[in-house]
C-alpha cells in the first residue's frame, strides 16, 4: 500500500518541525527517512503513523485519506526507538498484544505468535520478560509485536539506534531479507547514511523540517542535489575557492567548471569524496595540488591517507586502493600531489558549511 504525504506542516510552539513536506512512498517499498537530529524525520514518521497530528496537510494511504484517523484506526505497525516493550508482559504476551486488543480467539493468537517467534528466530524464549533479553532480541520482539496483527504498513523509528555496531549490522541485513519476504510497505527513520543506503529502496534526505532530496540510494549518492546532501552522505573533502570563466580556482589548483562561464568571480565550494582523490608523486599540472602526507592507515579495504595541502594548510582525506598505495609506497612526511578525479561544485548560497 502506498503512502502519500502532501504539504504537511507541524509546529511545536515556535519550532517548526515540518515545513510543507511532501513525500511519496511507493507500495511495497522500503523507504529511509535520513537526516540529522532535529530534521523532522521522526515527527514525519509519527504523523504517518497517526501518533502525531499535523497542523496542516494531508496523509493518504493508497486511495484513502487518513489525516483525521487515529493511530488505532490506521492499522499500522510501529517500532519505537527504545523498543517500548511492555515490561510487565512476557515475550509471548508482548507479541500477542495487538491480537488480544482485536479479540482474536485464543488458538489463533497462539498460532500467530508462534509463527512470528519463528520469523524473528526467538522460539523458546516466549516466556522471558523483556528485561531478560539482549538489545537485539528486544528489537526483534518489538518488530514481531508490530507485525502481529498484519498491519498495512510498518514504521520504524531509529530501529537500530540503540544497538552496538555488530548487532546493528546483522539486524539491518535481516530487516532487508524480511522485507523481501513479506514485501510490506515500510518506512524507517535513521541518521546513519550507511544504514539508509544499505537497507532502503528509496532514501529521503531531510534537513530542518524539509525534504532536501529523495531517490534511490544510487541517485542520491551520485547526484546529490545540494551541498548539504553531499556533506551529509559520508566523508567529503571541502575546497573553498572561486569560480570564474568556466574554471574553479582553489589554491594553486584549477578544475574545469563549465557551469559557470561568467567573467565575474564568485566564491564557490568544491566537494570531493576521499575515494575520488588520487595521489601521485609528481605534479600533473594545474589540476593537482601539492600536499604533505600526515598519516597513513592501510588497515582495511582501502588505505586511508591524511594529508595537509599546499600553503593553505587544508586537511585532506584520501582513500587509495591498496594496490595503488603499494605502488606509491607512501609514508608520513612525503611530499606528493593530490589530484581530484571528480568534483562537485556548489555556489555557497545553496548551503553555507
Amino acid at each position, binding site marked *: 500500500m502506498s503512502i502519500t504525504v502532501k504539504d504537511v506542516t507541524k509546529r511545536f510552539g515556535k519550532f517548526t518541525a515540518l515545513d510543507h513536506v511532501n513525500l511519496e512512498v511507493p507500495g511495497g517499498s522500503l523507504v529511509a527517512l535520513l537526516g540529522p537530529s532535529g530534521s523532522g524525520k521522526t515527527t514525519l514518521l509519527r504523523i504517518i*503513523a497517526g*501518533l502525531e497530528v499535523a497542523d496542516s496537510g494531508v496523509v493518504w494511504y493508497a486511495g484513502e485519506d487518513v489525516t483525521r484517523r*487515529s*493511530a*488505532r484506526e490506521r*492499522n*499500522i*505497525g*510501529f517500532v*519505537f526507538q*527504545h*523498543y*517500548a*516493550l*511492555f*515490561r*510487565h508482559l512476557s515475550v509471548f504476551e508482548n507479541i500477542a*498484544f*495487538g491480537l*488480544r*486488543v*482485536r479479540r482474536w480467539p485464543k488458538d489463533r493468537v497462539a498460532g500467530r505468535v508462534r509463527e512470528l517467534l519463528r520469523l524473528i528466530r526467538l522460539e523458546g524464549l516466549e516466556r522471558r*520478560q*523483556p*528485561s531478560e533479553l*539482549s*538489545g*537485539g*532480541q*528486544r528489537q*526483534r520482539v518489538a518488530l514481531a*509485536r*508490530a507485525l*502481529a*496483527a498484519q498491519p498495512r504498513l510498518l514504521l520504524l523509528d531509529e530501529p537500530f*539506534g*540503540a*544497538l*552496538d555496531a*555488530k*548487532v546493528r549490522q*546483522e*539486524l539491518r541485513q535481516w530487516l532487508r531479507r524480511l522485507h523481501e519476504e513479506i514485501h510490506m510497505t515500510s518506512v524507517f527513520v535513521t541518521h546513519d547514511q550507511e544504514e539508509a543506503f544499505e537497507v532502503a529502496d528509496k532514501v529521503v534526505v531531510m534537513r530542518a523540517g524539509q525534504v532536501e532530496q529523495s531517490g534511490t540510494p544510487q541517485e542520491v549518492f551520485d547526484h546529490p542535489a545540494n551541498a548539504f546532501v553531499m556533506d551529509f552522505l559520508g566523508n567529503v573533502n571541502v575546497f573553498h575557492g572561486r569560480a570564474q570563466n568556466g574554471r574553479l580556482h582553489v589554491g594553486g589548483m584549477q578544475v574545469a567548471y563549465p557551469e559557470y562561464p561568467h567573467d565575474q568571480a564568485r566564491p564557490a565550494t568544491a566537494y570531493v569524496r576521499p575515494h575520488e582523490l588520487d595521489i601521485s608523486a609528481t605534479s600533473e599540472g594545474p589540476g593537482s595540488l601539492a600536499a604533505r602526507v600526515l598519516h597513513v592507515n592501510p588497515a582495511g579495504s582501502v588505505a586511508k591517507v591524511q594529508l595537509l595541502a599546499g600553503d593553505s594548510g587544508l586537511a585532506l582525506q584520501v582513500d587509495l586502493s591498496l594496490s595503488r598505495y603499494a605502488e606509491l609506497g607512501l609514508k608520513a612526511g612525503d611530499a606528493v600531489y593530490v589530484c581530484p578525479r571528480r568534483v562537485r561544485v556548489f555556489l555557497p548560497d545553496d548551503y553555507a558549511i
Partner: protein
Amino acid sequence: MKPEGRLHAAPPRRPGQDPWWVRWTLTLAAVGVVGLLVIVPLVSVFYQALADGVGTYWKNLIADPDTRHAIRLTLGVAPLAVAANLVFGTAAAWVIARFRFPGRTVLMTLIDLPFSVSPVVAGLVFVLLFGLQGYFGPWLRAHGLKVIFAAPGLVLVTTFVTLPFIARELIPVLEAVGADEELAAVSLGARGWQVFSWVTLPNIKWGLLYGLILCNARAMGEFGAVYVVSGHIAGRTDTVPLRVEKLFQEYNTPGSFAVASVLTLLALVTLVVKVALERRVAVVEPEIPPDRTRGGES
C-alpha cells in the same frame, strides 16, 4: 580534649570520619529523641489500654454503642474518601505527567494545598460553603440534603485533606515509566481504556497501592477538619479520632486509650505495609535501558 602530646599517636583519620564521641553523641541523641517522642508514647498507649486487663479492654471497645458507631462511621467514611481520591488522584497524576498545558504548574501546586492548609481551616471553609448560613446551605436545606453535621460533610473534608496522597505518589512513577508503552499500545490498536488497564495500571500498581495505604491511614486518623464539620455528635457524627478525644474529656481514660490503640494498630499496620511496598516499588523492574552490553547474541 586529649593532651597535646598524644595527638600524634592517634590513628590517622579518614577524611569525613568524625571522632568517636561526635558519632556517639549524635547517635544517642537521635535514638533518644525517637525513644522519647515515638516509642514511649506508643508503648504507653497499649499499656494504658490494657491496664485493667484484656477483658476490660475488649469491653471498652465493644460494649459502648457510641464507640461501636464511631468505628462503623470511620470504616464507612474513609473508604469513600479513598475511593474519591483514587479516581481523582490517578486522573490528575496522569494528566500532569503526560501533558504540557497552561495551568499545569498551578494544578500541581493546588493539589499540594491540603498539605499546607491547617485542617481546621479546611473544615471551616466547608462549613462556610455548605453550612446552614453558607452559600449552598439554603439550597441544600430546601432539597432536604444535609452535608454539615452529617456523613457527607465528613466524606467531603476527609477527601479534601487526603487529596495529595495518591496524585503525589503517582506523578513521579508515571514520569519514570514514560509514555512510550502507552503509545505502543495505541499503535497496536488499543482503546483508551485498554491502554490504561493493560499497560498503565500494571506499571503503576505498586505506587498506586502505596498511595492508597497512606491515603487511608490519613483518612482514618483525620481529626481537625472532621471535628469542625461533624458537630461532634456522639453516636451520629463521631469518628474514631473524635471518639478518642471525647472519651478522654469524659475522664474515661481506659476507654479512650482502648479506642486509641485501634488507631495506633492501624498506623503500625500501615507502616509495615508501607515498608514492604517501598521495597517493592524500588525493585520493580527499572525502565528497560537501551542495551549496549548484552547485544552480542542474536
